[in-house]
C-alpha cells in the first residue's frame, strides 16, 4: 500500500539537520559521555527524556518483534540520520527483530493465522478498530508511555479507538490526486475527484487496486460517507466504479509511483507522503487534495494480544514518541506527524505545506477517518468489487465453459470405448 516511502531527500535533510544542530546543542549536556563521543560525527543527536526508564531491562537480554510497513522508519541510511532500532537497542539493551508488511490485510492475515508473536505492530485506523473488536490487540499501560503527552490533542480519542486505550498515533496523511500538470489543463483549485471520471483522459487514469480506498473515492464523488454500510449506497458507489472502468488504464497500488513517474499515466489517486517523493523527482507532476473531501488515514502503534514482552513493547512505543526519534522518522518517511514536538522541529516550509499539513478547518470538516465496517458490509463491498473487476467488456463467450466441459467428457468416453474395444481384440 504505502510501500514507496522516501529514501532520499538530501536537500531537505541538509536544511533540516542544519537547523536541528542549533536546536539540539544545548541539550547534549544531558547525554552520557560515551554516547556523546560516539555521536560527535553524527549530525542528528538523540536525547531521551528519562534515561533511567529505558534501562530497566538493560541486562535481561530481551528481544521484541516489531512488524511495520516497508520503509516506514528511519534507518540511518542517509548521512547524519538516526538508525532508530539500533539506537533503541543501544539505549535499552533490548534487541529489535524488525520485519515489514505491505498491506493492513497482510498484517491481519498473519496475526489471525497465528504462529507469529509480534510485540509492536503499526496498523491503520480501520484495521485497529477491527482488531479491537476481535480482541486481537490489547490495552496499553499509558504509565509506561509518558511521551504520549506529545501527541496532538486532535489525534487523540479518534473514532477507531474512542477512549484511546489501545493505540498511539505514529503518522497520518491524506489521499489526493497526483496529475501531470503539463497535460491536464485545469486550475489546481478546480480539480476534484470527478477528474478520475473525465472521459477526455480515457486510458490515462490509474485507480487504487483496493476496494476500501477505491470505494471511498467513489463514495466521496457521490456525496456518500466513506464509512457507509448501506447496501444501496455501496451499490451506487459500485455503479460509479463500473462506469469508470472503461476509462481506467489499470488498477494498481504501488505501481502508481513508477507509472506516474514514467509518464505512462496522467492522473492517479495517491497518498500525500508518497506523492511528495514523486513530485520532488518529477517537475511536470502536481498534487492536490480534493476540496470536496478525502480520507485521512492514521497509522498507530499497538501491542497485539499474545505479545511476549508487553512492557518492552510499551517502552519501544514510548521511544518512538521521543521528540528526536519521532522527528527522525517523520523526516525520513515524509508523511505527516501527530507529534507536537516533532512537528515543531520541522522546517517552516514543510509545516505550512498544504499537502502534508492542510489547514485544520479542512481536516475537521472535509476529511474522514475510516472506521471498520461490519463483516456484512465488508463482504458486500468485496463482492461488488470482484463483480466490477471481473465484469466482461471484451466479448468472452459465456458458452465456452460448458461446451469445453462437454467436449472433455465426450473425449474421455470416446477414448475409453476405443481402448476397451482394442483391449478386447488383443485377447484373441
Amino acid at each position, binding site marked *: 500500500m504505502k510501500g514507496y516511502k522516501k529514501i532520499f531527500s538530501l536537500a531537505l535533510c541538509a536544511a533540516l539537520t542544519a537547523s536541528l544542530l542549533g536546536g539540539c546543542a544545548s541539550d547534549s549536556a544531558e547525554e552520557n559521555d560515551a554516547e556523546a563521543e560516539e555521536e560527535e560525527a553524527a549530525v542528528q543527536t538523540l536525547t531521551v527524556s528519562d534515561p533511567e526508564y529505558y534501562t530497566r531491562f538493560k541486562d535481561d537480554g530481551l528481544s521484541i518483534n516489531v512488524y511495520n510497513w516497508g520503509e516506514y522508519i528511519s534507518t540511518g541510511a542517509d548521512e547524519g540520520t538516526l538508525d532508530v532500532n539500533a539506537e533503541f537497542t543501544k539505549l535499552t539493551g533490548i534487541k529489535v527483530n524488525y520485519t515489514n508488511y505491505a498491506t493492513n490485510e497482510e498484517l491481519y492475515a498473519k496475526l489471525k493465522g497465528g504462529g507469529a508473536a509480534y510485540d509492536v505492530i503499526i496498523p491503520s485506523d480501520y484495521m485497529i478498530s477491527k482488531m479491537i473488536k476481535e480482541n486481537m490487540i490489547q490495552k496499553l499501560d499509558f504509565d509506561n508511555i509518558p511521551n504520549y503527552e506529545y501527541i496532538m490533542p486532535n489525534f487523540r480519542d479518534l473514532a477507531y479507538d474512542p477512549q484511546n486505550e489501545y493505540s498511539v498515533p505514529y503518522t497520518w496523511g491524506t489521499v489526493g490526486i497526483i496529475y501531470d500538470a503539463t497535460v491536464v489543463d485545469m486550475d489546481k483549485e478546480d480539480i476534484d475527484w470527478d477528474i478520475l471520471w473525465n472521459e477526455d483522459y480515457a486510458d490515462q487514469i490509474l485507480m487504487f487496486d483496493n476496494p476500501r480506498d477505491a470505494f471511498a473515492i467513489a463514495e466521496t464523488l457521490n456525496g456518500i460517507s466513506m464509512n457507509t454500510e448501506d447496501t444501496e449506497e455501496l451499490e451506487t458507489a459500485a455503479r460509479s466504479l463500473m462506469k469508470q472502468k472503461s476509462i481506467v*488504464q489499470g488498477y494498481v497500488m504501488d*505501481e502508481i509511483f513508477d507509472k506516474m513517474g514514467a509518464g505512462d499515466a496522467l492522473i492517479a489517486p495517491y497518498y500525500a507522503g508518497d506523492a511528495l517523493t514523486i513530485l520532488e523527482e518529477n517537475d511536470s507532476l502536481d498534487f492536490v487534495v480534493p476540496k470536496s473531501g478525502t480520507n485521512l488515514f492514521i497509522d498507530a502503534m499497538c501491542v497485539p494480544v499474545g505479545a511476549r514482552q508487553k512492557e518492552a513493547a510499551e517502552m519501544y512505543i514510548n521511544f518512538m514518541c521521543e521528540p528526536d526519534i519521532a522527528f527522525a522518522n517523520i523526516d525520513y518517511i515524509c508523511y505527516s506527524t501527530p507529534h507536537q514536538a516533532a512537528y515543531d522541529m520541522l522546517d517552516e516550509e514543510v509545516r505550512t505545506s498544504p499537502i502534508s499539513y492542510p489547514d485544520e478547518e479542512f481536516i475537521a470538516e472535509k476529511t474522514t477517518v475510516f472506521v471498520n465496517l461490519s*463483516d456484512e458490509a465488508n*463482504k458486500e463491498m468485496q463482492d461488488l468489487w470482484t463483480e466490477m473487476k*471481473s465484469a466482461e467488456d471484451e466479448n*468472452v463467450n459465456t458458452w465456452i465453459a460448458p461446451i469445453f466441459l462437454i467436449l472433455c467428457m465426450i473425449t474421455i468416453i470416446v477414448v475409453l470405448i476405443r481402448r476397451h474395444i482394442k483391449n478386447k481384440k488383443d485377447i484373441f
Partner: protein
Amino acid sequence: MKLKYFSAPYLVWMVVFILVPLLMVAYFAFTNDNGAFTIKHVSAVGEYTNIFVRSVWLSLIATAVCLVVAYPVAFFLSRMDKHKQGTMLMIVMLPMWMNFLLRTYAWMTILGNKGIINHLLTLAGLEPVKLINTSGAVVLGMVYNYLPFMILPLYSVMEKIDKSVIEAASDLGCNSVSSLFRVIVPLSLPGIMSGITMVFVPAISTFIISRMLGGGSNLLIGDLIEMQFLGNSYNPHLGAAISLVLMALILVIMTVMNQFSPDDQVLM
C-alpha cells in the same frame, strides 16, 4: 529390499507438506468459522464462473502458443551437435535464473503506453497501440515465463529419438511431413504431455502476471484466491473452496490429456 527405507525422508516430507496441507484445504473449504460442516463456500464458487472461464481460456491459449513455439525449437535443439546443445540449453534456461517478478516487471516497461514498443512505433510515425492491461499481455506474460517448461521436457524426449529411426522412415517412403507426424510426434508424445502439464498448471493458477500485466481488470482464479486471504474481507474458507474447485478442474483437464498418451504412460 532394505533400499526402500531410503525413501522414508521423502515420504515424511510428502505427508507433512503435501498431504496434510491438502487435507487442511479440504477441511477449510467445507467448514464455516465455527468449524461446522457447510457446503456454502463450495457452492459460492459458482458465482465466479466467468473468472474460471477466463483463466482456463487464457492458460489454454498460452499453453498452445508455448507448444507451437517450443516444438520446433526443441526438435532442432535435439538434432544439433552435442557441444552446441549445451550452450543452447543454457540460453533457454538463462531467463529462469532471474527472478520471476523482475522478468514480469520488465514487460511492464516494454509494453507500457510510453514503453519501448510504443516509443518505437511513435518514432516510426505510427499510432501507439494499447498493449499493457489487456488479456493479450497476460497471455504473453504466461508464454514468456513458462516457455522453458515446455522446451525442456520436449527436448529431453526428442534427444532420445534415434536418428536412424527417422532415416528408416525416409527409407520406407515417408516424406519429411509424414515422418514428422507418423514418427517424431508419436515418439515425443510423452514430452508433449508433460510439457503441457508443466505449462498449463502454473499458468491457470498464476496471479501476479495478471496483476502486473493485466492491470488488475483481467482477474484470474489466482487473483480471486489471493483476494480471499489478503483482500478486504478475510475469508479463508471461500479461498480454500476456490482452490479445491481449481484442483478438481485441473484434475479433469489432465485426465482428458492423459487419454491421448500411450497406454503405459500415466503422467499424473
